[in-house]
């Protein structure tokens, strides 16, 4: 030890340095701790509970005038599924594409794109918010999801709708997402087939994608092949309700 007296300034300085080092490594250790992660997750659960109980379940996301649209609506995630089945679908201009209703329906079945286009449509110019932080505004046209659920005779024990997609992610897993029945019946929740008055571009999910306007981008499943009604998310993927939820711990509730 040096015989220089420890000054207050030195003491405070070294305490701060040691303290912040401990703080940072402590945070990383806590981040790996399952019990602590449970505590952190409780805030997200609380947000969901507050939004569902105090918020209005039918509150509409703001709709914008066409003049406020993004000049270019960027794509994200999968922007060009490269599996042969999807490539073949592009080649045939999605002529044979169908949307299947399966799971807890009284009348499961399939809709062709023409059948979907012949149903009542909703057009909305809304803001898309990516979990990464960026936003884009575009005009979507499609069939309200609640009409499809009713047409296929959704059963009372269905609690979630799972969306099955044609894009294959890492590990050979096709993309999937899910929402609860409150969001599924929301008036702005549509199965969109048009963006800005044109058929959906491939980068934005051709030929069909989900729009659920009160949640973030990773809920907006693209390249839709099936809607599946289930009573629980336990048997879907690894049980957390979506691809990113299962592989990277994103929160199932994407309203914040």
């Amino acid at each position, binding site marked *: 030890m040096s015989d220089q007296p420890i000054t207050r300034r030195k003491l405070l300085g070294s305490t701060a340095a040691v303290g912040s080092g401990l703080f940072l490594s402590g945070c990383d250790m806590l981040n790996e701790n399952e019990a602590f992660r449970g505590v952190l997750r409780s805030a*997200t659960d609380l947000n969901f509970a507050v939004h569902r109980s105090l918020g209005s379940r039918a509150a509409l996301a703001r709709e914008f005038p066409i003049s406020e649209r993004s000049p270019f609506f960027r794509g994200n995630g999968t922007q060009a599924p490269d599996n042969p089945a999807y490539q073949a679908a592009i080649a045939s201009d999605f002529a044979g594409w169908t949307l299947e209703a399966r799971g807890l329906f009284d009348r499961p079945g399939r809709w062709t794109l023409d059948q979907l286009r012949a149903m009542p449509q909703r057009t909305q110019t809304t*803001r898309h918010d990516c979990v990464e932080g960026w936003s884009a505004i575009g005009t979507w046209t499609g069939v309200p999801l609640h009409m499809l659920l009713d047409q296929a005779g959704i059963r009372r024990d269905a609690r979630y709708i799972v969306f099955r997609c044609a894009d294959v992610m890492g590990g050979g897993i096709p993309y999937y997402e899910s929402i609860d029945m409150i969001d599924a019946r929301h008036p702005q929740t549509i199965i969109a087939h048009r963006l800005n008055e044109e058929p959906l571009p491939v980068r934005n999910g051709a030929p069909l994608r989900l729009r659920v306007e009160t949640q973030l981008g990773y809920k907006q499943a693209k390249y839709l092949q099936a809607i599946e009604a289930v009573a629980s998310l336990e048997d879907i993927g690894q049980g957390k309700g979506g691809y990113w939820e299962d592989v990277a711990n994103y929160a199932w509730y994407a309203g914040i």
Partner: protein
Amino acid sequence: MSRTEIHPPASADQQPPPAAMRVKHAWTTRLWHWLTVLSLAILFMSGLNIFNAHPMLYWGSYGANYDQPWLVLERFPHWATIPGYYSLADARLWHFFFASLLAFTLLAFMIASLINRHVQRDLHIRKSEWAAQNIKRDLARHARFEFVGETPRKGYNWLQKISYILTIFILIPGMIFTGIAMSPAMDANWTWLLDVFGGRQSARSLHFIFAWSLFAFFLVHVALVLLTRPLMQLRGMISGGRKPVEERA
């Protein structure tokens, strides 16, 4: 809450002891102060991790890679983020937990500080303090670092009050509400948020600006504590400290 009056021991080694002392910082203030230190540190660092997912800022409702950002930054280094590696999902878990802690402790502190009259007694800027003469004198004193090594006086000066009021009533609430304005579900419920801040991307930009303003406040605040009897000040914010009972106006 009643004020606690304590008479100093006769052997107090300072100047002639004043007649009556009171606890300098109420327990509600101290508890809120340290919980806020913890929350803001974690929110700032997990916020940098979240920012790294898209290190660009825009004004207006929309903004993405093909639009015009007003600020483009390099990603912040991992030693400055929580967790200490890039994880948007985990940073969001940390961020939302401590955001709730920050918001609810601020609300509780505000209510407690109205009841125990901390706001009215210590933060309220009286008419006389708004006199140009007083403000000029206070700015000049700070500019000349006249306070260095001084025992803090009975009450806060004008510049102190302004900084604390800005932090407590503008910057931290600003952080909370610009944060809420980035939630698509809350935007549907509270559409006025979008009008107040000028759109979601503007809210995100303001969130960033407020965060760095709070960081600047933190630097100045700590520097000033270090310049004015740091150990006494630190002790005061932990155990309460003592200060003379001020004369009634």
